[in-house]
């Protein structure tokens, strides 16, 4: 896609500009000071759930059945630290990509809104990192390395925004549920609630831009290339769900053979159902926007 093609498409779409205007207005109206918003108690109770158990990747698998209740709770703590760590690393990638595009010729139209995304994501990264360090004493290290993707010329912008949307949609499924789960400590609920508020705007933006960038690709790419993009994104979605099974979290929860445990969880039929559930929203969007010709395969395994 040439520079002018992207810019023209974004400039020529009235609806997109209306959405951007509303999102900027909402961001200004709801602006808050994250550094003063949260109560950070010295510690959170170790014998409670830190994460909604039904949202844990192990839930319903043989691994889960074998764990005594206190071990499940310990695991929920470390899986929640892993979840927030994934957020920290996902936000690093997001910031990197948005900063690379703000006030460039292709993206003059959304640049005003990019300022809000960058500002808000910096704050999200701060509170997620604060949570991990304060209550877990660490942030789990990043696991992914950017190597070759589907290798389709001109699809870079689309792939970047599609990956970011998959990430934000998936995280939001967790945030929304955990914000309203009264088994969780108020600080945990608050972190999830605050993030969900901001992300509802980012996701509205992400859906618009991803749909537009793909509409453009449909005019220029052949069926084979579009299918390769679809396959790649489906793989990316499965990989994102698999990243919720972190061997380091099993180790910290005192569960032996953490790599074997991860393999068992990922291979379990219950986990296939879990992956479908947490990805359903993203999948529906992708199908409705014409980005996927078919839904995720029945067995959402790797």
């Amino acid at each position: 896609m040439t520079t002018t093609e992207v810019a023209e498409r974004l400039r020529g779409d009235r609806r997109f500009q209306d959405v951007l205007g509303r999102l900027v207005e909402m961001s200004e109206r709801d602006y808050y000071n994250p550094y003063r918003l949260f109560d950070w108690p010295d510690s959170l109770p170790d014998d409670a759930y830190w994460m909604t158990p039904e949202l844990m990747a192990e839930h319903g698998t043989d691994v889960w059945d074998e764990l005594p209740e206190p071990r499940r709770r310990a695991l929920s703590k470390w899986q929640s630290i892993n979840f927030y760590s994934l957020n920290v690393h996902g936000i690093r990638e997001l910031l990197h990509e948005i900063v690379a595009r703000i006030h460039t010729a292709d993206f003059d139209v959304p640049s005003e809104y990019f300022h809000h995304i960058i500002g808000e994501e910096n704050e999200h990264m701060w509170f997620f990192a604060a949570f991990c360090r304060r209550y877990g004493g660490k942030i789990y290290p990043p696991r992914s390395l950017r190597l070759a993707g589907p290798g389709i010329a001109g699809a870079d912008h689309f792939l970047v925004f599609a990956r970011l949307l998959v990430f934000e949609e998936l995280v939001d499924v967790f945030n929304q549920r955990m914000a309203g789960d009264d088994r969780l400590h108020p600080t945990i609920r608050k972190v999830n609630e605050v993030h969900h508020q901001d992300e509802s705007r980012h996701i509205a933006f992400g859906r618009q831009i991803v749909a537009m960038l793909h509409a453009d690709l449909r005019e220029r790419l052949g069926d084979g290339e579009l299918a390769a993009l679809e396959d790649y994104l489906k793989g990316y979605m499965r990989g994102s769900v698999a990243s919720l099974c972190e061997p380091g979290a099993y180790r910290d929860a005192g569960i032996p053979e953490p790599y074997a445990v991860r393999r068992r969880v990922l291979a379990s039929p219950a986990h296939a159902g879990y992956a479908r559930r947490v990805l359903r929203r993203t999948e529906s969007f992708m199908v409705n926007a014409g980005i996927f010709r078919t839904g995720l395969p029945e067995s959402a395994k790797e």
Partner: protein
Amino acid sequence: MPASDPVAAPDGAEPVPDGLEFVLRHLRSRKPEYGDLDPDFDLIENRVLDSLGFVEFLYLLEEHTGQEISIDAVSREDFRTIRRIRERFFR
């Protein structure tokens, strides 16, 4: 001990460690069309390792070297060839 070829193990040469053997098998299974994979074959250029497959490979490497590997502490060049992987993670 010959340092010239850290992967192939002719008679009297350094044997391939068990862990590395697992890792090699995994890499070969990702792209069987490339056969046995020469120690200097470019795994990244030839997409034996790509973005989506990398994490599973990393976990396998951790499991068989017994060390947690932080992406902050390595570079993509450490994964470029089997020779590099052996030098970096199986010494």
